[in-house]
């Protein structure tokens, strides 16, 4: 058993050849380093009272977002290989189902440890180069890395289970992304909350005391209660055993519970456009509906319990509900959706079929309309939830009129992002890379906005348009409309050009 799991781990490395996993990990580390160090000047270091403590405080925080996404992507990719290659029939005649699972687990564990160690090493080296005094306390470093490994592993195992249950990776990934969002949000509500997605935060070794007026926060070392470690280990062991159990029940490469649900078609007539027929039985709505709901619920909750600090106004509620959606979650969601739309064509020989039946412009137009439509609906849904929750908690009737502008600009920005992502997912056949670009784009958007270059990046336009930081910010609406149209036009033309001038590729 152990020998065969070890062997299938080695094979996992072989299978992931040319998938540049190391590069992916380095990119995530780079993003984390940017987050930790950008804006810190060498000359300031001496003035910071607790520089290492600050670093060790923020690493688990940022990782509960980025490391979670990374681990989910790794797990989903490793399962996708098997679904896509149709290798279940072959593998199961040669190795036991549980050793396939354990092999994937050990593979994930290797990269997770590599990530933890590399990230910490890079952070320390960079910090020393910037003139940090002394070295960070060894115990803090070790505890931080181990909390990352436990938290990351829970997400990874969870994703392996999800990716087995749903062979479509969109559904599988978005459930975990919703969880990540919820976990990340909940940490702002209660920084020791124990969801599987916020373990890294719950197990962190430092507390922050933020006093208004002070230039710097103070950090205090904190002993994580035994109970927290216990729960974390329970999650770890629980997902491991549920996974083992489920994997031993694989039937023809999927779980029979999920695969035998086909409903009878009532009639051959189906009135919806082609693109929507293609989306049938692909549960795309899950993420677009659930993510705003999570965001709204947590926003309201946060708004209510922090009444000491926040003003009781529509504008403050809007900030609470939409800030993270605009920065971190909406663009990757649109990206996932666009990847999904093209993936159906990239798969198998579908390009041969559609290119002989439709013009490139029409293909791109339909994809763009679908992606724009669903993201516009999503923005309206966010708005509706905002209005409803505001009424429920009893906010007065003076809804700022800028809200409607924000809805409009949000939709426009989403359409611009959809156009960019449609192009990216068309030229990049990988599912995850365009999504990663969108996530990076969201982060870059913050910087672009602070520099006043909002119009130069569609992801920044989304944050600018939603006005999450301040609902009363001024937006140049005509310019906003014009720039959005320019983006849509450019990327539409690029996409059509790409289809026309590149040979169609089939298979895989």
């Amino acid at each position: 058993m152990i020998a065969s799991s070890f062997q299938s781990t080695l094979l996992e490395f072989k299978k992931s050849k040319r998938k540049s996993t190391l590069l992916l990990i380095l990119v995530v580390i780079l993003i984390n380093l940017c987050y930790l160090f950008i804006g810190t000047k060498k000359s300031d270091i001496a003035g910071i009272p607790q520089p290492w403590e600050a670093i060790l405080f923020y690493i688990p925080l940022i990782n509960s977002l980025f490391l979670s996404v990374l681990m989910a992507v790794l797990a989903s990719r490793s399962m996708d290989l098997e679904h896509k290659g149709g290798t279940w029939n072959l593998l199961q005649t040669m190795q036991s189902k549980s050793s396939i699972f354990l092999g994937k687990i050990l593979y994930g564990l290797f990269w997770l440890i590599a990530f933890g160690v590399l990230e910490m090493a890079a952070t320390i080296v960079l910090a020393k180069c910037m003139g940090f005094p002394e070295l960070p306390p060894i115990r803090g470093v070790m505890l931080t890395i181990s909390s990352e490994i436990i938290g990351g592993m829970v997400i990874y195992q969870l994703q392996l289970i999800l990716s087995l249950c749903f062979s479509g990776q969109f559904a599988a990934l978005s459930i975990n992304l919703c969880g990540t969002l919820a976990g990340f949000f909940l940490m702002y509500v209660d920084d020791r909350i124990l969801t599987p997605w916020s373990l890294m935060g719950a197990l962190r070794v430092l507390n922050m005391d933020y006093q208004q007026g002070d230039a710097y926060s103070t950090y205090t070392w904190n002993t994580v209660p035994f109970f927290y470690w216990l729960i974390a280990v329970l999650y770890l062991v629980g997902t491991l055993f549920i996974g083992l159990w489920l994997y031993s029940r694989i039937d023809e490469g999927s779980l029979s519970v999920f695969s035998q649900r086909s409903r009878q078609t009532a009639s051959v007539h189906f009135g919806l456009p082609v693109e929507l027929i293609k989306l049938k039985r692909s549960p795309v709505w899950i993420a677009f509906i659930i993510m705003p709901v999570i965001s709204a619920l947590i926003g309201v909750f946060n708004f209510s319990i922090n009444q000491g600090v926040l003003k009781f106004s529509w504008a403050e509620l809007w900030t609470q509900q939409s800030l993270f959606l605009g920065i971190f979650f909406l663009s990757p969601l649109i990206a996932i959706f666009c990847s999904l739309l093209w993936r159906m064509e990239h798969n198998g020989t579908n390009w041969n079929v559609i290119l002989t039946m439709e013009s490139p412009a029409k293909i791109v137009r339909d994809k763009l309309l679908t992606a724009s439509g669903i993201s516009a609906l999503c923005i309206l849904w966010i708005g509706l939830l905002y209005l409803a929750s505001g009424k429920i908690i009893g906010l007065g009737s003076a809804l700022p009129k800028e809200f409607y502008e924000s809805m409009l600009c949000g939709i426009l920005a989403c359409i611009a992002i959809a156009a960019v992502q449609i192009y990216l997912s068309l030229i990049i056949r990988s599912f995850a890379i365009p999504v990663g670009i969108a996530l990076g784009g969201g982060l870059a958007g913050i910087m672009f906005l602070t520099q006043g270059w909002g119009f130069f990046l569609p992801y920044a336009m989304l944050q600018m348009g939603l006005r999450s930081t301040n609902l009363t910010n001024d937006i140049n609406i005509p310019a906003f409309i014009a720039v959005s149209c320019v983006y849509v036009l450019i990327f539409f033309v690029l996409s059509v050009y790409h289809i026309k001038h590149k040979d169609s590729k089939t298979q895989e």
Partner: protein
Amino acid sequence: MNYILETNHLAKKQGNTYRVNDINLHVPENCVYGFLGPNGAGKTTTLKMILGLIRPDHGKISIFGQQVASANRLQILKGTGSLIENPGGYGHLTGLENMQIVQKLKGVPEEKIAHTLKTVRLYEQKDKKLKHYSLGMRQRLGIAMALLGDPKLLILDEPTNGLDPAGIQEVRELIRTLPEKRSMTIIVSSHLLSEVEQMADYVGIIHHGEMLYQGKLSSLETGGKNLEEVFLSMTGGGDSL
């Protein structure tokens, strides 16, 4: 007679209807066994049950004289090689790398890879990525994966899918020589009657999930009728899925 593979009242349900019902296969050693049936007759389902890829609802399977249970399944399958439905493989890896994965899982020496790839004439193409393989090349690689390690029992599900006439003939010749040269037993499922006629010693004919005939091909073809005529009269012609 010595049977290398036997099934006993094998059945698989889908919903309330039987996909496969009461199948009693008897495959003698050192022969080519043609498993015939129209599309949708239950050939692949039966083969998958034999390999433990899906669970039978009733019935028993024994291979090499041992009854297959989940505890000894993989142990028994070590002596088999199989190609079921479409050939599997990882598109971003080369043919050779795909073979290496199978080689490690089967635990056979590395040197066997080159020999097996040469057998299916893919050795020159071994450094191409699988996604750049043609349908026929993928099929050959699938056969190579099954052949690797000289299994005693080879199970091939429509092995000539996607091959050109020369390729079909080549695979047919290969299959025909395996029982004698490497003392293998081969089960070949197919709906191509002429193909089976040219290589099988024994045939089993399955239709709507039930076995219609099993035995020597030669005793089926008595009375001057060829396999096609017998097959169509048994399965009622025209009525397939």
